[in-house]
């Protein structure tokens, strides 16, 4: 195929223990380590492997986010993407708006395959890929843990609640990836240098003509109710008594 488009989101690194702002208006991001959403990194890795196996000519990455998002795009370029598109928008958007902005890039670039994460680990929405697929009436394969390309068809193994489902989808298609698809490569220093010279186009969302009026208002963001602190026990007989006391084991 000619082009693979990979959509990546800048999120708080998955190792960071998030903190909630004292006024409960959101989550603290200042001074917090940011990364490519881990699922999107896997999506990019898959795209690069398809290209390296000779089945694609170009891997393009796109991200919507504040100006700092270019750090993650540079990382993506260092991993091996050929060029990047940054749609600059300072505040978080709803997945439907993200999908519509991305649809403009799809119209421009006409990729045969679009790879995305199954979910962003900040909003945990798990929506954008499916919405983008519906905008074009494209096929989708979500929760992908294995992808095999044969001619114009992708066979995708999907991790669903009941086990592993296998779907065939015709290209152009959207695949949203799960953790077990692959293990992303580490970026090497010379690649970071090279990435600085790769093209990175910055777009103003206004030029893409998508309504960005919110339809969902976040009233507050709070910590989940804490679990009561527990006890340490010594052995199995203490556990048995304790569980019986709590009525969790029958006598």
């Amino acid at each position, binding site marked *: 195929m000619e082009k693979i488009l990979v959509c990546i989101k800048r999120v708080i690194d998955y190792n960071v223990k998030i903190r909630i702002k004292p006024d409960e208006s959101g*989550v603290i991001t200042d001074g917090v380590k940011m990364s490519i959403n881990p699922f999107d990194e896997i999506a990019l890795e898959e795209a690069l492997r398809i290209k390296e196996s000779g089945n694609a000519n170009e891997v393009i990455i796109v991200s919507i986010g504040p100006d700092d998002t270019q750090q993650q795009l540079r990382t993506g370029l260092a991993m091996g993407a050929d060029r990047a598109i940054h749609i600059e928008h300072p505040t978080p958007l709803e997945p439907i708006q993200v999908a519509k902005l991305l649809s403009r890039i799809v119209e421009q670039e006409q990729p045969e395959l679009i790879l995305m994460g199954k979910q962003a680990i900040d909003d945990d929405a798990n929506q954008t890929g*499916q919405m983008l697929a519906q905008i074009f009436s494209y096929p989708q394969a979500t929760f992908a843990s294995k992808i095999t390309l044969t001619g114009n068809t992708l066979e995708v193994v999907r991790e669903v609640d*009941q086990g592993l489902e296998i779907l065939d989808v015709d290209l152009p298609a959207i695949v949203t990836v799960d953790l077990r698809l692959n293990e992303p490569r580490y970026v090497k220093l010379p690649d970071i240098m090279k990435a600085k010279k790769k093209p990175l186009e910055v777009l103003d969302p206004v030029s893409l003509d998508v309504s960005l009026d919110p339809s*969902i208002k976040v009233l*507050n963001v709070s910590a989940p109710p804490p679990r009561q602190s527990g*006890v340490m026990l010594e052995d199995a007989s203490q556990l*048995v008594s304790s569980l019986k006391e709590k009525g*969790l084991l029958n006598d």
Partner: protein
Amino acid sequence: MTSDQKVLVIAEHFQGEIISSTSKAINCASQISSQVDLLVLSNDPNLSDHASRYDGINEVLVINDDLFENSIASIMAPVIAEIASSYDYVLAPSTTFGKDLTPRVSAVLDVSQITDIMEVIDSRTFKRPVYAGNAIETIEINQGQKVVATVRPASFKDVGDSNNASVKILDLPSVDIPNHTRFKGIQSEVKERPDLQVASVVISGGRGVGSAENFEILYQLADKLGASVGASRAAVDAGYVPNDMQVGQTGKIIAPDLYFAFGISGAIQHIAGIKDAGTIVAVNKDPDAPIFEIADIGIVADLFEFIPDFLSKLD
């Protein structure tokens, strides 16, 4: 409760049965309105009988067609969107089925969507988890906009099954149905134990279990307690157990009365799946394992010594 609002719940079914997550979505729907209908898209006419027994359902809408033999989102979404034109809400369970499907419905209807409703504050205001459940958002959706949402099963109880709702068979609406997606099969192991998402006791093992063979001891304990067996991602990645046993942010979110974590360190992504459990028991040989920070009962021990001892005390 505003009773003039109409809610459409999408039934999830697998191998000839409606799944419990559907019942939980109905419970959520009933907290929004008393006008709740259940839509069953399948090729199995026998499902409507079960569907009509759910308490809180006004009417069961059924389309029987071979198109729905397997749940393919690109086929179902345009059909649901068409039927949704006379509803204010479309709800589906927040399972891999519902998550795959509902965003396509939202896109056809050109509306935003809410993933993982965990609490209904009022008909426009909901709570949902973000950051793997480490924060809870309270959100309000604009007046007058159709609401498409998924319902987090672990946050709602099953509804009863003493109803006898009327069943209406619908014709397939004339919408464009794509043929670009073909179902090729599903590998699903027949489970001898209770379903993870329904079981009141769950025994999970992590990397510390060490191998597929070693999981046997967890199965023994599970059988003794009538429990289901789950696993951490590391255990699934290592091939000890199949993917559908993974508990956590990207696996199953569960709410058993009693949860056992054996050889699981307690990464936030794993904890995200068990936050609603009643009592969490952790057995780990590392006294500093983070799982002990959230466990109700912690025991520092080697699981291979502990479990046989525990089994013998249960006799």
